[in-house]
């Protein structure tokens, strides 16, 4: 058949065919519109949910970043701080001797009635004629602040007999009362603070003695149960950092190396098939099982310390490995065979082919895989509970072998704290810190990826 035979005159069959196509067009366009609509709806729903989550976390968490501070004038009363003069190192005195003497003096200082000093300072700050009992006065200020006074004195014994302005943290309950996170209309018996303390707090806020300041100590302090107002994230933050470091140092090289071996060098046989299936299965194993494995293997068998970032890091490494291996393999598989052939055809060995040509083009993919894996590990909580990282640890770990908490475990601990009114905001603040850390990780990944891709 030549082209000219299907000239301008249309046959009946052609006409019928066109009619059929036109008839089906409306339906086809409708299907397309429905599908597009569903897609948009799904995206909008997802965005709305994420937006709601962020809004809830931020709206609940931001008040935690400011806290009530009480500006008091502290009188280091010599009658209350009835201690010897601070030891001065005598000529010829040995180091150990002086240290022992100094410690004895410090113990003496610690035993002084610092509560009485705080109580006096609160009374002094109260308006003239304000009647308040000792307990109510003390309840205004966070209990840990008396230790700060003691530390100030130890650092500078010349403070004895002087009046010094000291900014103290208000107690968690005072903070609740002033922020309104406790119902102010509750009857006395159900209030955490006595009527005197509540009245004093209101008056001090009014005259400016109490003010709200940015709570830097959330970032610099460790967790605290006895002085909840001073509880911070530093210990958990450092614990999480150690674990991330271990995950990055172990999971990335091991995962990438395994993926390269399996994809480029391993023979394709039943054994490698079995390994592949098992890696895929491992990726689907619930994280709590990895926690049990970690408790059994690392703590029970190898005798590593409980609640330590080293164990947490190892467990999270095991958990992250399959993710990194699978993602790296798929990005290796996406490299066009022509690139491999080009290298091999020139006489490059397989190792040269992989490291000179294949790996550089897969680097962005590997990087993404790594960040996804590490971000997942960063937020993982369940295995940490099994290996004891939900323990209350009030110190910043100096090494990964020290006891520590982790950010998600800290969130878990705080959300279960009995002082809900105070810790609800604190928990959200901790979530904000964790999310910020994750976003920072992702941002780094995006930046690195862009740079690598531009170079490629």
């Amino acid at each position, binding site marked *: 058949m030549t082209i000219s035979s299907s000239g301008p005159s249309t046959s009946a069959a052609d006409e019928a065919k066109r009619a059929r196509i036109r008839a089906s067009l409306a339906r086809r366009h409708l299907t397309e519109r429905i599908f597009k609509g569903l897609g948009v709806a799904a995206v909008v729903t997802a965005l709305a949910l994420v937006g709601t989550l962020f809004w809830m976390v931020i709206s609940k968490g931001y008040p935690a970043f400011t806290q009530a501070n009480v500006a008091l004038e502290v009188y280091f009363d010599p009658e209350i701080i009835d201690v010897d003069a601070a030891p001065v190192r005598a000529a010829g005195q040995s180091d150990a001797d002086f240290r022992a003497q100094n410690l004895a003096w410090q113990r003496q200082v610690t035993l002084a009635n610092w509560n009485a000093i705080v109580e006096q300072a609160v009374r002094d700050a109260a308006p003239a004629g304000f009647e308040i009992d000792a307990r109510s006065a003390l309840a205004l200020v966070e209990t840990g602040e008396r230790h700060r006074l003691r530390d100030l004195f130890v650092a500078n014994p010349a403070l004895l007999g002087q009046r010094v302005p000291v900014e103290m943290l208000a107690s968690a309950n005072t903070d609740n009362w002033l922020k309104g996170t406790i119902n102010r209309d509750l009857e006395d018996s159900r209030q955490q603070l006595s009527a005197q303390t509540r009245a004093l707090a209101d008056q001090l806020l009014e005259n400016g003695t109490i003010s709200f300041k940015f709570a830097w100590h959330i970032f610099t302090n460790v967790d605290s149960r006895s002085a909840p107002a001073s509880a911070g994230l530093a210990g958990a933050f450092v614990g999480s950092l150690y674990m991330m470091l271990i995950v990055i140092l172990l999971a990335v090289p091991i995962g990438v190396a395994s993926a390269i071996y399996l994809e480029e060098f391993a023979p394709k046989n039943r054994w490698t098939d079995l390994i592949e299936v098992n890696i895929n299965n491992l990726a689907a194993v619930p994280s709590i099982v990895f926690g049990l494995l970690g408790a059994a293997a690392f703590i029970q068998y190898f005798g590593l310390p409980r609640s330590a970032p080293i164990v947490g890091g190892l467990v999270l490494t095991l958990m992250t490995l399959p993710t990194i291996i699978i993602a790296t393999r798929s990005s290796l598989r996406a490299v066009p065979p*022509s690139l*491999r*052939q080009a290298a091999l055809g*020139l*006489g490059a060995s397989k190792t040269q082919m992989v490291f*000179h040509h294949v790996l550089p083009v897969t680097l962005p993919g590997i990087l993404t895989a790594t960040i996804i894996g590490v971000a997942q590990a960063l937020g993982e909580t369940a295995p940490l509970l099994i290996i004891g990282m939900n323990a209350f640890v009030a110190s910043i770990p100096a090494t990964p072998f020290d006891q520590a908490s982790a950010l998600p475990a800290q969130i878990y601990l705080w959300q279960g704290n009995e002082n809900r009114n105070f810790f609800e905001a604190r928990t959200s603040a901790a979530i904000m810190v964790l999310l910020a850390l994750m976003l920072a990780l992702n941002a780094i990944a995006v930046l690195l990826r862009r740079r690598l891709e531009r170079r490629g």
Partner: protein
Amino acid sequence: MDMMAGKFAANVTPLEEGMSLSDHPIRLEARDVCVHYGAKQALYDVSIDIPDRAVTAFIGPSGCGKSTFLRCINRMNDTIEGARVTGRIALDGEDVYDRSLDVVELRARVGMVFQKPNPFPKSIFENVAYGPKIHGMVRNKAEAEEVVVSSLKRAGLFEEVKDRLHEPGTGLSGGQQQRLCIARAIATRPEVLLMDEPCSALDPIATAIIEELIDELRENFTIVIVTHSMQQAARVSQKTAFFHLGKLIEEGDTANIFTNPAKKQTQDYIMGRIG
């Protein structure tokens, strides 16, 4: 027959004056080469001699085994899962499938240009310098530069890219990319250059440039080219082998094959009746 002779005779590149193929020593010698992919046999008992410093063309319809045979010569079939090669292929009398021969060394001696231009996603300079670098043929930057420039010149690409040697090779046009790949392949000074349908992804002008290049390269290299185009085989080669269904049907001087094929299948293919 007359029609055929008229169609191709004018195109056939004549050998040098007073020289016949038999004056070229044998560079590559294949005897009873069979290739299996798993249970499927792709090549049956191929025996052929490839002359030195001449262009040998493999022609035949798709799936006839010509590329498979080409890939046996530098053992690229090794990289295909389940491929098995039997028989003997000798380069200068040395069996390329011998256990004592390192495949890396073989591929340094037998270069390859692929169907689709496949420059590395690196600079033009790095593309060409890579082979000499990994084989230790250049010791410093100056030597590398010398090799890069001379290879690009030989591939007829230098004038076009001399101002952008450090820009990515993937930014060139298709024809330029293929010439870059040829420059890359000849930079390692191979003894044999295999070309697997090097022009099938190129437009007619780029094809003409590459054909001319092949003709120049034959002074220094033994070239084996696989091509779909009979015109191309007639234009660039001195020897032609016709493959069909995994078998080598006929081989001989290009002029002879195109004007006076001995086998009916060859004749049918050249006349366009199969393929």
